[in-house]
């Protein structure tokens, strides 16, 4: 890596791209009107990278200067990022005279007439394409563009230095930007149809990228599994959208959300089923129980893909869809009758998934699998929060509803930032361990039995990788919800409001409320366990001693996201992000006359809420997640660093804590039957596969037979017979001009005769 110091020169071509937004601003363009550029830039970059990659593959300049397409992708994503930041700034600046949402760049795509009930073609329907911008869109858009950019940056270091990817990276970058297009498009879409189209594009890219190492059987299997499992959800989503179309006659947000009085006229039973079907689609995409089985296997893909698609952006699509359901239930003071159960169902799915995923994460030894289960668990928190929000909205509890909705969206932000970073940090660990192993065993043949992702091969890395271990620590703290850091602000809000719903309004809510409270403690355990197993204790493999943190492009995103995860939560909470995200500007914390008062208000709100029940819940959460979970993890999996190794000052306190409590004795725990069940992921995969092999597989075999013999048979028979028949007809064509003229004459004559006969 000696030549790496000059690598950052490659970014010079990106400077003109940075000037684009100021140029557009000076030319007098509105930021909202430029929003389509966010989708257009990656849309253009995708074929560019594919074609250039095919043309220049193996070329030195392409490999070293263009990073096999990585620079093109980075430029396109920089366009998207800068435009979305521009919109965000204008949106925030105009916040006081802005009415909720804005639709721009709307064009008509398809228009058609439909049959009325009296069979006259009179009702004209239009399907358009447009950009929808409101606070939720902007938050998710910023998360997506920002993380896409950073993770593309990270990939330049991670993908291009691995010899296994050589001459294949253009494929990675092309699919990466295509995914980015899908994500941005889904967030910006102004109707459910386009949302669905982009949703499917993301699903396709997820499939392609999980199967990036398709020659590995496990990767091909995982890609197939992810695609098919999400497809189950997608079918339900499509059915839901069709029902919705049937109800409203349109899928445009502006039509569906516009007129609350419409809701009085709609059949609320139908609406309930539409929303439930859409929610099942969301379950599939966001890997919630019972369609969660694909996400852990999806970690077969390259680590940047896990970071971007399967932690930070695509899995949020389901949450976004559920967040878009709010206008359906938020009508008047008493909500829509018949939709009461929707919030409960969402909350229960969330609670069950949170608990289940956290318990499976207890025993995973693959560092990425721990993070995958953690992702499921944290997304489930957000689902629980959204479920409570839907319930509150539908019961007219507007204040609580907006608070928990905002908290859920805020948790989405915190989780995406922290989890994107955690995956990149784990990628950094895997990358360096892999390199150290290659370095150590150059020419050796024991390549296959060493797994660079297995935490049992690590330990003590805190002394080797200061940046990565610090980033991992901060990310874990944010996920755990250590007070004052990142996810604390949002997670506390979700748990408190769910308990509020359970204690004061709806006794059935107690299920999810208890589950997510327990999960908070379990999160403390498994995240700490991961950190201790990786970074603390003595090295468990001689490879560890040769690890260096030296690959370029990898550290910068970690540092940026670590800062955001560490401070972002508190700062954004101070500026009232929770109220802002739920669209309630009235009680914005910006009203607080001074910063100090805002800080005191937020701290009081978080630690000493007025409701005594919430005070107990809040402090129980802190106790479980901050004290009990991590200490048990340190007790079981921690240990002293090896003699002579010193951790960097940022994490030294944690390694010494681990040394103080640690016994590194997990044998007893790992032999129980519960642990075995958890290691087998509670047998979900096993039974799903069993059920599929009993039902779907025989049917598929039959369908293949039917296709081959019956359908193909008919077609082949038709083809063979038409060849025979044409030989017969061929005799008529003699090739003699006079015969043809005779035919023309006879034909013309018979037409005349026919015409004469008909008219006569």
């Amino acid at each position, binding site marked *: 890596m000696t030549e790496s110091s000059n690598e950052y020169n490659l970014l010079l071509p990106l400077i003109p791209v940075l000037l684009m937004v100021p140029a557009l601003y000076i030319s007098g363009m509105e930021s909202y009107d430029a929003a389509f550029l966010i989708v257009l830039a990656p849309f253009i970059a995708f074929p560019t990278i594919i074609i250039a990659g095919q043309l220049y593959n193996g070329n030195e300049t392409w490999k070293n200067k263009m990073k096999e397409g990585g620079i093109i992708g980075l430029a396109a994503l920089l366009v998207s990022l800068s435009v979305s930041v521009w919109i965000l700034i204008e949106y925030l600046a105009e916040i006081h005279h802005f009415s909720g949402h804005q639709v721009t760049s709307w064009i008509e795509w398809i228009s058609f007439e439909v049959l009325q009930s009296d069979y006259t073609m009179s009702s004209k329907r239009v399907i358009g394409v447009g950009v929808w911008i409101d606070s939720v869109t902007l938050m998710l858009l910023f998360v997506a563009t920002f993380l896409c950019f950073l993770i593309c940056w990270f990939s330049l270091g991670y993908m291009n230095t691995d010899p296994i990817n050589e001459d294949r990276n253009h494929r990675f970058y092309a699919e990466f930007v295509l995914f980015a297009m899908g994500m941005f498009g889904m967030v910006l879409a102004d109707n459910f149809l386009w949302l669905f189209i982009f949703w499917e594009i993301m699903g396709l890219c997820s499939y392609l990228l999980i199967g990036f190492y398709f020659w590995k059987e496990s990767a091909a299997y995982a890609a197939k599994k992810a695609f098919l499992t999400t497809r189950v959800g997608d079918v339900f989503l499509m059915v839901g959208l069709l029902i919705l179309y049937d109800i409203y006659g349109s899928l445009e947000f502006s039509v569906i959300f516009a007129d609350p009085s419409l809701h009085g006229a709609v059949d609320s039973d139908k609406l309930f089923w539409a929303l439930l079907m859409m929610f099942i689609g969301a379950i599939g995409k966001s890997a919630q129980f019972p369609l969660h089985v694909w996400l852990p296997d999806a970690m077969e893909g390259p680590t940047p893909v896990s970071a971007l698609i399967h932690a930070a952006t695509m899995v949020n699509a389901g949450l976004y869809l559920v967040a878009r359901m709010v206008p359906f239930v938020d009508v008047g003071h008493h909500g829509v009758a018949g939709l009461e159960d929707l919030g409960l169902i969402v909350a229960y799915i969330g609670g069950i998934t949170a608990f289940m995923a956290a318990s499976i994460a207890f025993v995973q030894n693959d560092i990425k699998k721990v993070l995958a289960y953690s992702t499921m668990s944290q997304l489930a928190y957000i689902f629980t929060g959204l479920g409570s929000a839907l319930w509150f909205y539908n019961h007219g509890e507007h204040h609580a509803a907006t608070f928990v909705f905002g908290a859920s969206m805020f948790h989405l932000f915190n989780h995406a930032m922290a989890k994107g970073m955690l995956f990149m940090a784990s990628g950094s660990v895997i990358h360096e361990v892999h390199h150290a192993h290659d370095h150590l065993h150059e020419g050796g043949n024991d390549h296959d039995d060493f797994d660079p992702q297995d935490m049992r091969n690590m330990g003590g890395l805190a002394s080797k990788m200061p940046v990565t271990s610090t980033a991992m620590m901060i990310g874990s703290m944010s996920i755990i919800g250590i007070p004052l850091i990142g996810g604390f602000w949002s997670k506390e809000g979700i748990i408190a409001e769910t308990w509020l719903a359970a204690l004061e309004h709806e006794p059935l809510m107690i299920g999810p409320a208890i589950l997510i409270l327990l999960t908070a403690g379990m999160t403390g355990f498994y995240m700490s366990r991961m950190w201790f197993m990786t970074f603390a204790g003595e090295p468990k493999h001689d490879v560890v001693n040769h690890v260096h943190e030296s690959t370029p492009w990898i550290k910068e995103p970690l540092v940026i996201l670590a800062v955001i995860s560490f401070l972002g939560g508190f700062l954004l909470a101070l500026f009232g992000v929770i109220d802002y995200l739920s669209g309630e500007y009235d009680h914005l914390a910006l009203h607080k006359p001074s910063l100090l008062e805002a800080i005191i208000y937020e701290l009081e709100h978080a630690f000493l809420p007025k409701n005594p029940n919430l005070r107990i819940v809040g402090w129980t959460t802190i106790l479980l997640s901050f004290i009990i979970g991590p200490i048990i993890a340190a007790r079981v999996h921690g240990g002293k660093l090896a003699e002579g190794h010193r951790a960097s000052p940022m994490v030294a306190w944690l390694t010494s804590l681990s040394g103080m409590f640690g016994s590194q004795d997990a044998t007893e725990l790992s032999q129980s039957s519960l642990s075995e069940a958890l290691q087998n992921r509670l047998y979900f995969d096993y039974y799903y596969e069993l059920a599929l092999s009993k039902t779907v597989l025989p049917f598929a075999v039959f369908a293949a037979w039917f296709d081959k013999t019956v359908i193909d048979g008919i077609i082949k028979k038709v083809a063979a017979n038409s060849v025979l028949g044409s030989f017969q007809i061929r005799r008529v064509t*003699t*090739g*003699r*001009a*006079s015969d043809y003229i*005779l035919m023309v*004459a006879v034909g013309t004559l018979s037409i005349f005769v026919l015409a004469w006969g008909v008219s006569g």
Partner: protein
Amino acid sequence: MIDPSWIAALGVILFGIGLLGTFYHKNAIVVLMCIELMLNAANLNFVAAASHYGDVDGWVFTAIAISIAAAEVAIGLAILLSLYSTQGTISLDGARELRN
């Protein structure tokens, strides 16, 4: 003034001669002449109708048809020449390559 139905009958006869000629003759030049005969039978009808109704449209049509027929003959003869140079004969029975 001759009754136009006589002229129409003459047209039919000429057309029939032309049509039968195209059926029974092998010589391409004769076939071409027969086609011209059919065209002119139609022209005759046009002219007769035009003078009967006192309308110039028929004459205009005839003028156009004659000029187009001239162009057509030029092309037809060119085709026959190249047919002769490739096949050594202008008998239509020889020109059945496309059938196979």
